[in-house]
């Protein structure tokens, strides 16, 4: 099997090259690629509780190559973990040619064989994607066909085996997606209206015990969507998802004798907003129930995901704002929790130059509010315990050609036990982010942050100073200090050099335990201290 695939790959790469060499007067194809290496040398550090892994080193490496020639493309990705960085999915080991594909695309039609990434709608039903921050790559190995008829109808069909760790799993996915743009057919001017639908079948052999309890290896889920945008800037998107049949270990096995709980997943999503004239308003409401979708039912890996269910709230970027990011509750029998419901509102406004508040150089303001609850009862939209609530506002102003500042206030309240009880923790955070340009290419940036809370380790403060020599060099030093109880300093310093498509960064410091999030999906990390060398390049 493996050998056949390699032969396919080499053929796929060689054929277009050979063709291009033979055809006279035709334009040549081109090669594009990227390389990334991320290495950490760990050390023990008792004040933070950081424990170095056995061999004290972690190294994640990715080499990606793509060849394009006209409508044809082919590519591969080689990954190497020597060994994988701490707290990444442990199934990422050694080196392997993990992804490879050949593809043919023209204006209306495309065919891909090999690995591919894709998603249906918002990804609640199905998403195959790569996120190196999370150690996530569930590319599907198989085939995909897409067809677009004059922008009115677009259809997608796919089949394959999702990648899990360094291998392709035995789980099969088969799916289809259709989008029908009514507005294009009716030739409406300035209005876009589309009806969309998807179906996904997932097939995995199941344990005999589950079969005895009536479980089936195949499960089919559906998604129906409406997508409306008006030229004035108003938009409405709605989605209903039937997530298919799900199986969970039964926490009450001792009393009722059933090993598994069988549930049907469902989700509802509404997005409503207005974007025009310097104003951006975006409201999202979502309800989830039993929406776990795994590649392999028996794996507990953090990368064991077949759908994309991000936390719908602001993903903060400053040090102290990220201690307790919200992690989504998909439904977990062990927590007596079938899911979550809630919503978020984002408002952006740009006070233009020359207006009273905008002044000479304009001013930007952003506010966000979100709130999430457990489902009080299965099958209802009754709110249970508060899971998460946050409010934030940030104002950014360019005061002069040289000086610019951003002020952020954030209030975050979070359930301490994933909604199992009512207890919450509350924290208030303020951040001042100031940039001063001494010359057009020499600048400094200073962040000052404070976190106030009565819980956990009480209050924190943090500062970061960055000195930039554009376009190549940047240096920073930072410190997060807990003066509420532990009195531990989390210091760090680093330097980066960027030239053309290459960037190298070297940093050393203490990292607090907590979460690393990307795109609303998070993974848990333990405290670590060490030296980090990262290089990315593309060609």
């Amino acid at each position, binding site marked *: 099997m493996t050998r056949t695939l390699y032969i396919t790959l080499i053929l796929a790469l060689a054929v277009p090259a050979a063709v291009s060499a033979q055809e006279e007067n035709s334009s040549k194809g081109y090669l594009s690629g990227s390389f990334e290496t991320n290495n950490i040398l760990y050390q023990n550090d008792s004040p933070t509780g950081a424990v170095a892994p056995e061999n004290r080193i972690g190294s994640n490496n990715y080499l990606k190559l793509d060849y394009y020639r006209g409508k044809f493309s082919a590519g591969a990705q080689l990954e190497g973990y020597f060994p994988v960085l701490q707290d990444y999915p442990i199934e990422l080991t050694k080196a392997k040619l993990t992804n490879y594909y050949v593809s043919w695309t023209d204006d209306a039609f495309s065919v891909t064989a090999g690995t591919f990434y894709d998603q249906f709608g918002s990804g609640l039903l199905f998403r195959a994607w790569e996120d190196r921050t999370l150690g996530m790559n569930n590319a599907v190995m198989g085939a995909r066909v897409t067809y677009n008829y004059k922008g009115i109808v677009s259809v997608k069909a796919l089949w394959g085996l999702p990648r899990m760790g360094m291998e392709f799993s035995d789980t099969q996915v088969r799916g289809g997606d259709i989008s029908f743009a009514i507005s294009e057919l009716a030739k409406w001017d300035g209005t876009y209206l589309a009806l969309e639908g998807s179906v996904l079948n997932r097939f995995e052999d199941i344990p005999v015990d589950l079969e005895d309890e009536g479980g089936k290896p195949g499960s089919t889920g559906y998604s129906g969507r409406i997508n409306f945008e008006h030229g004035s*800037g108003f938009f409405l998107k709605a989605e209903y998802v039937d997530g298919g049949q799900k199986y969970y270990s039964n926490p009450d096995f001792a009393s009722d004798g059933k090993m598994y709980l069988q549930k049907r997943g469902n989700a509802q999503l509404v997005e409503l907003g207005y974007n025009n004239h*310097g104003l951006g308003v*975006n409201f999202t409401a979502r309800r989830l129930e039993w929406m776990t979708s795994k590649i392999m039912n028996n794996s507990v890996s953090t990368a064991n995901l077949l759908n994309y269910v*991000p936390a719908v709230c602001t993903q903060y970027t400053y040090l102290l704002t990220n201690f307790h990011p919200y992690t989504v509750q998909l439904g977990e029998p062990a927590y007596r929790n079938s899911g979550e419901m809630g919503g978020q509102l984002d408002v952006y406004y740009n006070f233009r130059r020359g207006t009273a508040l905008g002044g000479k150089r304009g001013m930007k*303001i952003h506010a966000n509010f979100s709130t999430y609850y457990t489902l009080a009862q299965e099958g209802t939209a009754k709110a249970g315990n508060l899971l998460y609530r946050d409010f934030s506002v940030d104002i950014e102003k360019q005061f002069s050609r040289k000086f610019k500042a951003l002020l952020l206030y954030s209030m975050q309240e979070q359930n301490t036990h994933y909604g199992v009880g009512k207890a919450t923790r509350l924290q208030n955070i303020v951040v001042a982010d100031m940039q001063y340009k001494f010359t057009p290419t020499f600048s400094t940036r200073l962040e000052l942050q404070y976190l106030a809370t009565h819980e956990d380790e009480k209050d924190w403060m943090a500062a970061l100073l960055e000195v930039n020599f554009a376009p190549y060099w940047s240096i920073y030093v930072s410190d997060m200090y807990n003066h509420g109880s532990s009195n531990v300093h989390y210091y760090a310093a680093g330097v980066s050099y960027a030239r053309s498509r290459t960037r190298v960064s070297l940093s050393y410091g203490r990292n607090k335990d907590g979460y690393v999030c990307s795109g609303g999906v998070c993974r848990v990390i333990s405290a670590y201290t060490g030296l980090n060398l990262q290089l990315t390049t593309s060609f």
Partner: protein
Amino acid sequence: MKAIRTLMLAAAVFFLAAVTAAAQIPAVNVENAKGEVISTASLVDGKTPMIISFWSTTCKPCIRELDAINELMPDWLEEAEFRVVAVSTDDARFSTKARSLVQGHGWTDFIDIYDKNQAFMRAMNVTLTPQVYVVDADGKIVYSHTGYTPGSELELLEKIKELQ
């Protein structure tokens, strides 16, 4: 076996490198500001060069870079003719937020496109944002820079001027 695989890959790369030309804008499907699906090939108009910048709502330096370009754009347009393409790499969930942020930051003179499935990002082999390119009128990449330091945007104008 591992050595053979590596060797095969190296051979394939070498063979391809021998028959390849300069990198261009690949044709992949993305969404435009209206939510319609367009091909990135349609960005190349044969007349004006462009600055292509990859950003996301959670990438602070990306937003700083695009704010800086937006601030300088009226002055730059007096010196050279060009377009700015801001490519949001936000996932489906965050792409509506990206649209709102575009308004709130006044990036309305840019060509804003939304790469919800990161197809354009992968095809351009972008691994780290911010990533910015200067592309000539025929779609050939003539300059690129990874990361943002305040002031590095000035190089973009220099490259654009060279293309006039």
